[in-house]
């Protein structure tokens, strides 16, 4: 690994974070009107909240002082105080919500990748057949269906009508559990529908990606070699073709982790699941700007971590890559 690559990687990460900071800094200040009002977009605040904002962001000071202060605060992990949960700091609330979101998003992604892999491989193997076109049609339809609506339908059918799963929340409030296992079971029960919805709504991307790359790989000479070697279909398919075809899928998984955490806004809203997504929705409704900005910054950070993880994965998966 060259130091040049490392440097490039780091600078681009820093640039993204910096851009996120500038956006967060600039948006409220670009609005016309009274500084505090535009800063809160006219939401009614108590006098003490109002005063807190002026002081906190130094709205009476020159712009560069404001930015310097903002910059230092952000680096310290201080994203301000939530309007809605005043006077709790944004960071604390986000950190409480994040694990729940990670639970459903990461579990859902595991399902998506597995389903996407197998369907993609199967479709590519029979490219151009009826089977392939059915899979593609289903994928496109599912991908184009709004995820929150899918969630609503799932909730209506499996939660409300069939009563298989609870209607919302992360665990049953007020319940006392005999042991940890019972608690975990309850948590899983609550997470099942959100995970299922997320897995169902987004497997298509992996499927299409896997299939398209695989179709290309299947035309490669080394596949002919593999078949000529007298290997069974399974071995040719998975050991030789899919192994090469899964690289773009891995890249996408890294990027999509953040996209999906973002998408959890919809899932968590519908299932009243107290993760980051629900937090964003509530913040939109209550116009809790510090919280929204905090979430945006957190996401930017996650994106960078995601891409770096993928870069390292690549080193193991593709021997041709040298950084």
């Amino acid at each position, binding site marked *: 690994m060259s130091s040049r*690559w490392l440097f490039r990687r780091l600078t681009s990460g820093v640039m993204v974070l910096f851009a996120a900071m500038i956006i967060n800094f600039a948006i409220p200040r670009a609005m016309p009107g009274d500084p505090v009002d535009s800063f809160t977009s006219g939401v009614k605040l108590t006098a003490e909240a109002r005063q807190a904002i002026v002081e906190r962001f130094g709205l009476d000071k020159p712009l560069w002082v404001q930015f310097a202060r903002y910059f230092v605060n952000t680096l310290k992990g201080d994203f301000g105080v939530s309007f809605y949960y005043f006077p709790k700091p944004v960071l604390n609330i986000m950190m409480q919500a994040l694990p729940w979101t990670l639970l459903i998003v990461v579990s859902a992604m595991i399902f998506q990748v597995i389903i996407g892999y197998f369907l993609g491989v199967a479709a590519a193997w029979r490219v151009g057949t009826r089977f392939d076109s059915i899979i593609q049609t289903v994928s496109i339809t599912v991908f184009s269906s709004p995820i929150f609506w899918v969630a609503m339908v799932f909730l209506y059918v499996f939660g409300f009508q069939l009563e298989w799963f609870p209607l919302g929340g992360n665990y049953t409030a007020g319940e006392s559990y005999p042991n940890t296992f019972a608690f975990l079971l309850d948590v899983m029960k609550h997470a099942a529908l959100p995970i299922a919805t997320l897995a169902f709504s987004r497997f298509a991307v992996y499927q299409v990606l896997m299939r398209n790359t695989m179709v290309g790989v299947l035309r490669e000479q080394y596949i002919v070699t593999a078949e000529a070697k007298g290997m069974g279909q399974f071995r040719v398919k998975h050991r030789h073709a899919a192994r090469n075809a899964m690289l773009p899928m891995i*890249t996408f998984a890294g990027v999509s982790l953040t996209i999906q955490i973002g998408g959890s806004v919809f899932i968590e809203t519908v299932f009243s699941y107290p993760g980051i997504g629900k937090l964003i929705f509530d913040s939109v409704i209550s116009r809790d700007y510090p919280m929204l900005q905090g979430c945006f910054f957190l996401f930017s950070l996650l994106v960078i971590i995601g891409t770096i993880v993928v*870069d390292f994965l*690549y080193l193991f998966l593709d021997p*041709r*890559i040298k*950084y």
Partner: protein
Amino acid sequence: METIYKVEELKKLFPVKRRGIFERTRRYIHAVDEVSFNINKGETFGIVGESGCGKTTLARMLLRLEEPTSGKIFFKGQDITSVDRQELKNLRKKMQMIFQDPYSSLDPRKTIYNLVAEPLKVHKVVQDGTREEKVKETLALVDLPTTEEFLGKVPDELSGGQRQRIGIARALILGAEFIVADEPVSMLDASVKAGITSLMIDLKQRIGLTYVFITHEIGLAYYTCDRIAVMYLGKIVELGNAEEVIRKPLHPYTQLLMEAIPPLQPDEQWGKTITERGELPLFDEPPKGCRFHPRCPAAKDPCSMDEPELKEITQGHHVACLESW
């Protein structure tokens, strides 16, 4: 003999570039390193070498499709490395190129008529009314049909040989005198190759062209060229009359190439002395001294230190080898 083209210490360096994570291409230096030669009017000048020796870069520089790092190129006494855009455009009427790949060098969306007429449109020569006439005339010159139906076809509907004839027609329609042909037949079928080659030779005599003929097949160069330059890792190692270079190769590299060519008749003796060190290594930088010395069977100590210059040994026969002098 009139010199039409003069190349002086032409040099091209490519930086070694390793692109981003997702583009897996690496670039090596395919440099052309201080190459000088003259081309006489009316001759076919062959440039021969293995892939990666810099022959294509050299060809592109001759027409200034690639900017040289340093050096000068004179076309009829005019230095084309320093002319401005407008002047270069005018020069392009006189000097043209035939490309290697007849499939990718024609825009797949254009009709045959538009492809052949494109040079006329670009240079705004020949009025609209007579354009079609000129196109048909040029097509006839390269032995292609001139029917309306043919003019309306797209490249996909043509065979490789026909496409390459279109390429030649495009090069000729403006009345070029000097043509650089970069492996013009290497992608064609054997039975079609000869037809294109003889068309090119025939055209040369009929309209007085001068060719630079680039090829990796030394046999083909022998048949088509008057003089041959053999390139190795960006340098010309031998230059002379085609007959003489083929019959009496002086540079060990040329000798190696000659020996490597399979003879037409079965011959057990073929390639007998070609040893393990034959394969062209990939260098980030060329080796010190004579570039061929790591592969050279006759290499001696000085060969790894001093880089030999191209020297005239007999009348018109130049070679860059310490041992051969």
